[in-house]
C-alpha cells in the first residue's frame, strides 16, 4: 500500500484514533474538500535524458473523488458500449478503453482546456475527459444526429473543437504529425499551451512519428508525445513488434519518461512535468504503462494472444479504479457505501444517456452532402447549373 501522510492543515487530530466519528464528520465535506494532500506514487518514474519528476503528488480529497467518479463513469460507459455493440446498435469498429482510464483522467487533471489533445481511435474516454457528454458519445456510437460528429464520424471520429480535442483518427499513427502541427500552431500564436499527441505501442513503430518528432525537436515545438503502451498492438505483443520496446527511449535525442499508466496520480504528475518541459525545451515523450481489458476492438476476443490469467491478474493488482478506491478508503475520504453509491449513480447516468440516445433520430438524408466542403468563399459554383447539387435519395 502506498505511503501516505496528510498535510497538517486538517482540523482532525489524528485520523486513526476515532475513525468512525471522523468519517461521519468528514462525510459532509468530502465533495468540496480541497485540502491539499500529498501522495506518493507506488512506482518510480524512469527517465531518458531528463530529470524525473518527484514521486510525491499534490492532490486533494476533492480531486481523488473526482478521479474516482470520472473513472467509474468511463468504465461504465465502455461496458455499456460493449453491450450495445453486442446488441448490434453500434456497428463497425468499437475500440474500448477500459483499463486505461487513469491516463485520460490523470492527463486532464494536469492541463487546461486550452491545451490540445489528439488521439487515435480509442477515444471515447478521452472525449469524455475533455468535456464531452454521455449523450454525445452514445448518439455518435449509434450513428444518431445528436452525436458529437452528427452521426457522420462514428466511434473512431469523436471531436470537440471548443475544448481543443482534435480526435479521433482511424489510421494508426497519422494523428502524430497532426498533433505536431497543433503544437506548431500553438507556437505560432504564442499561446503558452501544449499539445498531447497520444498513440499506442503499435503506432510507435510508424515512420511518420519519427519524422514528426524530428521536425518538432528542430523547431522546438511544445509537443508531448504520449505512448499509451498497453503492450499489444492489436494482436501482436510489443516484444514481437518492436526491437526496442522501451518506447520512452525511442526518441533518442528527445527526452522521455516512463510512467505507471494505471496510477492516475502518477499520470497527473508526469503530464504536469511534461507540460513545463515542453514549453521550455521542446518535445518530450511520455510512455504510459497501461493495460486494456477488452480486446483490441469488439471483434477481437482479446484472449487468443494473451491468457485470461494475465488479464485478471492485472485487474486484481493494478486496476486504476481500485487503486483510487483503496486510497480514498485508506484516507477516510469516503466510506465504502458512498463509493458504491457513486457507482450506482454513475450507472444510472449511463443508462439514462443510452435511453436518451436511443430516442435521438438518425441523421437526415440531406446530411449525406453537408460538410463535404465549406461554403462561402466569394463566387462559388457547384454542379451543371451553377446551383448546389442536390441528390434525392429514395
Amino acid at each position: 500500500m502506498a505511503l501516505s501522510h496528510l498535510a497538517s492543515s486538517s482540523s482532525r487530530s489524528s485520523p486513526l484514533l476515532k475513525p468512525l466519528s471522523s468519517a461521519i464528520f468528514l462525510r459532509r465535506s468530502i465533495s468540496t474538500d480541497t485540502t491539499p494532500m500529498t501522495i506518493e506514487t507506488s512506482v518510480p518514474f524512469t527517465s531518458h535524458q531528463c530529470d524525473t519528476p518527484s514521486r510525491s503528488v499534490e492532490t486533494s480529497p476533492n480531486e481523488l473523488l473526482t478521479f474516482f467518479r470520472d473513472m467509474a463513469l468511463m468504465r461504465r460507459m465502455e461496458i455499456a458500449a460493449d453491450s450495445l455493440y453486442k446488441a448490434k446498435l453500434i456497428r463497425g469498429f468499437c475500440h474500448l478503453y477500459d483499463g486505461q482510464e487513469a491516463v485520460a483522467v490523470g492527463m486532464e487533471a494536469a492541463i487546461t482546456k486550452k491545451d490540445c489533445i489528439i488521439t487515435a481511435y480509442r477515444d471515447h474516454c478521452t472525449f469524455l475527459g475533455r468535456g464531452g457528454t454521455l449523450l454525445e458519445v452514445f448518439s455518435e456510437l449509434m450513428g444518431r444526429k445528436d452525436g458529437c460528429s452528427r452521426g457522420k464520424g462514428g466511434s473512431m471520429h469523436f471531436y470537440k473543437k471548443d475544448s481543443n480535442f482534435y480526435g479521433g483518427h482511424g489510421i494508426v499513427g497519422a494523428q502524430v504529425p497532426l498533433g505536431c502541427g497543433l503544437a506548431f500552431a500553438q507556437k505560432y500564436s504564442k499561446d503558452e499551451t501544449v499539445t498531447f499527441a497520444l498513440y499506442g505501442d503499435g503506432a510507435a513503430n510508424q515512420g511518420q512519428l519519427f519524422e514528426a518528432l524530428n521536425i518538432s525537436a528542430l523547431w522546438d515545438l511544445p509537443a508531448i508525445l504520449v505512448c499509451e503502451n498497453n503492450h499489444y498492438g492489436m494482436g501482436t505483443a510489443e516484444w514481437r513488434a518492436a526491437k526496442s520496446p522501451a518506447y520512452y527511449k525511442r526518441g533518442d535525442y528527445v527526452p522521455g519518461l516512463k510512467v505507471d499508466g494505471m496510477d492516475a496520480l502518477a499520470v497527473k504528475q508526469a503530464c504536469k512535468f511534461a507540460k513545463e518541459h515542453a514549453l521550455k525545451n521542446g518535445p518530450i515523450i511520455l510512455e504510459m504503462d497501461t493495460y486494456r481489458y477488452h480486446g483490441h476492438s469488439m471483434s477481437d476476443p482479446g484472449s487468443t494472444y494473451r491468457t485470461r490469467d494475465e488479464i485478471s491478474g492485472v485487474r486484481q493488482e493494478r486496476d486504476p479504479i481500485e487503486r483510487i478506491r483503496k486510497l480514498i478508503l485508506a484516507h477516510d475520504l469516503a466510506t465504502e457505501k458512498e463509493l458504491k453509491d457513486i457507482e450506482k449513480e454513475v450507472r444510472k447516468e449511463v443508462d439514462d444517456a443510452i435511453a436518451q440516445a436511443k430516442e435521438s433520430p438518425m441523421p437526415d438524408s440531406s446530411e449525406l452532402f453537408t460538410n463535404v466542403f465549406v461554403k462561402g468563399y466569394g463566387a462559388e459554383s457547384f454542379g451543371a447549373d451553377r446551383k448546389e447539387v442536390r441528390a434525392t435519395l429514395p
Partner: protein
Amino acid sequence: MAAIFQGVGAAAALSSSPSNSFDTKKLLCSPRRSFSARKGASFVVVRSDGSVNFDLNHKGRRAQQLITNAVATKADSSAAASSSKPGHELLLFEALREGLEEEMERDATVCVMGEDVGHYGGSYKVTKGLAEKFGDLRVLDTPIAENSFTGMGIGAAMTGLRPVVEGMNMGFLLLAFNQISNNCGMLHYTSGGQFKIPIVIRGPGGVGRQLGAEHSQRLESYFQSIPGIQMVACSTPYNAKGLMKAAIRSENPVILFEHVLLYNLKERIPDEDYICNLEEAEMVRPGEHVTILTYSRMRYHVMQAAKTLVNKGYDPEVIDIRSLKPFDLYTIGNSVKKTHRVLIVEECMRTGGIGASLTAAITENFHDYLDAPIICLSSQDVPTPYAGPLEEWTVVQPAQIVTAVEQLCQ
C-alpha cells in the same frame, strides 16, 4: 532535346524586345524560355543550356507558318509589350510569389512549409525572398519528410492557421497521400463540420524535360476521388496568381497543380488585387465547331494546334478547365450545347485520368447535345521514359490534336 514549342519568323523580333525577358535573378540549371501567352505571338526555342536556337527542323516535325493573331481572343491583342499598357509583366513563378506574398501580408496566419522554401528560396523560386521578409516561423524549411510535414500542415490548419504546403515535386506528395486523403479531405465531414482545413497544397508536376519516370508524375488523377478537396491547375501568370490567392483564402483544402515547364511563362497582369474563382473554367478562345477542353501545359499544345486548325478552316473553342475538382460543368455545358463536339486534351494518363472523369461527366449531363463521341487525348499509360523522343510521344502533341479535331468534325 529541348524544344517543345516551335516558332518562326517574328521570333527574333520578340526575343529582343523586352530587355528583361529572361529573369534577371540567377536562374540555375532550369531551362529558360520566353513566352507571351495567349497573344498569338511567336515562340522562341530555347535550349536547356540557355542558348537561344532557331533551329526548327526537329525530328522531321514540319515547321509551321505562323500567322500572328490567329488565336487572338481579344481585339486589342498585340505581340509587342508596350509600357503604356496597364499592369506589370512577370513570369509565372513570380506571379505565384506575388500572390503568396500579398496573401501573407494580408493575413498573418498564412505560412509556408516545404523543402527548401526558406533560405534556399524555393527550388522553383516561388518562395524566393519570403523567408527574409517574413521570418523563419512563417516560411519554414522542413526536412525531407512529406508525410509528416503535410500532416503538420493539416494539424495547424485545424486550429485556424492557413498553411501553404509545397511539395517540391507533386510526385513526392504520394508519400503524404494518407494525410491528404484521410485527414485533409475528410476531417471536415467526419467531425460534423467542427474543423475547417484551409490548407493549400501546391507544387509542380507533369512531364518535364527528361526528368525520368518518378519525377514526371501527374497526380491529378490520384487525388481526384478524394472527397472534400478542391483541385485547380494554373496555366498562365494571370490565373496562377489569381488561383493562388483564391486557394489561400478558401476555407476548403485546395490542391494547386503547377507545371514544371510553365514556370517561365511571361505575361502582363493587372496591378490591382484580383482573384480567380476556384471553380470556374477559362474561355481561352471562343469558337463554333468543336469544344476543346484542356488544362495546364496542354493548353499550349492546344493553342499551337489551334493555329493549324484555323488555317485549315476550323473554328475551335478552347476552354482551359482550370478547376479539376469540381468541374465547371456550367461553362463546359454551354460550350457543348453550342458546338456539339468535344475533344479533351490532357496530360494525365488515359486510365482513370481527369479526362476519363470529364468524359463521364459530360456524357452523363450533356449526352443529348453531342453529335459525336467524345475524344479524349491523354498521355500514354506508361512510365515516362527518359529518352527524348520517347518522352515527346508520351504526351499529346499538337499534330495529334489536329488529327483528332479533323476526325471529330467529319
